[in-house]
């Protein structure tokens, strides 16, 4: 049994999500190789080779893969993946974009966002915004799988000594091109891998007030998240949305401020170890999942919290 893990990276370095996918792949009882598709991605390939328990790292270094365009990358993954039993990727935006194309090219189903490996062909995955966990069995000889990263520990980033092999397949489908990007730069930890996350909702009233969360986040080394309502209202950018259709987080501590606790928001954070809710409405549903609930006006509570931690 052999598994190809698709690396999430920014060419220069490997993203942590890859390490969680490696752990899921190892749970399938398989030899694990990693595919790094990118341009000038030697840095990411070397980092992948250092991951514990990896057999070899295949590197497709070509301009066609620079921006992870799904039309190009999917052709590559389908070709390289032909030699493997499983093709596994973290459920990042890039991999969610490309992997279903891979599955269709191979004429197999995709199993999205698995949270556990029950056996070689059986997996668990959340459905209905995480209100139900389904156990699904695949009849496909080759399996295409994305992994919910919060459900698997990260494999050790060091200690491995995989060989690095170049793959020269250059697939440029020629039907799409990259125009530009607006990427938020932040010194804070990444939302999906931070130990502490503090999120604001509609109750924050405006983007300016998110500064009150920043002060606390700086003191705690936390990442900042948001509800859909806060993003829709333009308080903060889309990459901060936590939830069913945003990012899934499971930090040691999640602090929800001015967030009511809709099903769709809970879907993205209810596996956090400790949940704190600050809300002025004592009946807000967020209190049903909170370990510690504080019924208070956030404009009083946040400055006080910042001064006391």
């Amino acid at each position, binding site marked *: 049994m052999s598994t190809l893990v698709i690396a999430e990276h920014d060419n220069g370095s490997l993203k942590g999500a890859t390490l969680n996918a490696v752990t899921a792949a190892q749970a399938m009882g398989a030899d694990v190789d990693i595919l790094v598709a990118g341009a000038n991605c030697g840095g990411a390939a070397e980092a992948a080779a250092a991951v514990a328990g990896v057999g070899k790292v295949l590197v497709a270094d070509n301009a066609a893969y620079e*921006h992870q*365009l799904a*039309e190009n990358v*999917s052709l590559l993954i389908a070709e390289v993946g032909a030699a493997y039993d499983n093709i596994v990727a973290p459920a990042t*935006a*890039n991999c*969610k*974009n490309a*992997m*279903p*194309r891979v*599955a*269709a090219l191979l004429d197999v*189903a*995709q*199993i*999205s966002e698995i949270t556990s490996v029950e056996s070689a062909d059986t997996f668990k995955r*959340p*459905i*209905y915004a995480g*209100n*139900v*966990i389904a*156990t*699904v*069995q*695949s*009849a496909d000889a080759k399996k295409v799988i994305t992994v919910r990263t919060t459900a698997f520990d990260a494999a050790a980033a060091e200690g491995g000594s995989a060989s690095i092999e170049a793959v020269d397949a250059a697939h440029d*489908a020629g*039907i*799409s*091109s*990259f125009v*530009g*990007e*607006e990427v*938020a730069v932040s010194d804070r930890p990444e939302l*999906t891998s931070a130990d*502490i996350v503090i999120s604001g909702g509609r109750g924050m009233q405006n983007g300016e007030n998110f500064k009150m969360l920043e002060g606390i986040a700086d003191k*705690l080394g936390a990442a900042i998240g948001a509800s859909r309502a806060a*993003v829709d209202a333009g308080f903060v*950018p*889309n990459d901060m949305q936590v939830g*069913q*259709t945003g*990012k899934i987080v499971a930090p*040691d501590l999640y602090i929800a401020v001015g967030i009511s606790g809709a*099903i769709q928001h809970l879907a993205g954070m209810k596996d956090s*170890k400790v949940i704190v809710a600050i809300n002025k409405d004592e009946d807000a549903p967020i*209190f049903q*999942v909170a*370990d*510690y*609930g*504080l*019924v*208070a006006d956030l404009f009083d509570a946040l400055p006080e*919290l910042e001064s*006391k*931690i």
Partner: protein
Amino acid sequence: MKVLVAVKRVVDYNVKVRAKADGSDVDLNNVKMAINPFCEIAVEEAVRLKEAGTATEVIAVSIGDKACQEQIRTALALGADRGIQVETESNVEPLVVAKLLKGVVDKEQPQLVILGKQSIDGDNNQTGQMLGALANMPQGTFASEVVVDGDKLNVTREVDGGLQTVSLNLPAVVTTDLRLNEPRYASLPNIMKAKKKQLDVYSPADLGVEVTSHLTQVSVEPPAERQAGIKVEDVDQLVDKLKNEAKVIS
């Protein structure tokens, strides 16, 4: 240009769905059904393209049993011109949905196919991408802005780091994210008009597609319950609990 929109019938997003006690399936008895929210956004985008004079015809397609005609009628009331139902059992895997949509694409030759990014029942996030591969069309997934630019389509996408813009050759596939637009409500006269719009029904065989099953749902279960928490009196108590009981801050 002709625009095809895929709409799925799903449980209403306000319903908290539960697993049946025997774990055989989810309990959908008497729950409210609706058009998948992302599909509603897809219909709205297509209708706006028509209102802008870019689209000439908007066709709403749904795959499922007869009940999904209700969601096609919703799309027609929102402004789609005609509907297509591909008659199958109610729960078809994304790969098969994509093959059936490819069959409709071959028949109708649209320049643009708009789908939701995700069904809120299965949370798959697959169908649009699969259709793209099967029809060899480029894709703009998780779209927050769609601009037709001559024979190209510029799509701004919501990605992990922020926003990315890609340029796609037409015909193309787009999947909608939440912030692409805010769907309108259907007016009563439009709901009445929708009842008279054309709705064709095809079988998978009409489209030359064999309905297969690659996955079996073995069982379902509720997620792990969280232990009930407490309400703290004030910020001091909260800080104390976090430091000394939960030990998550120092």
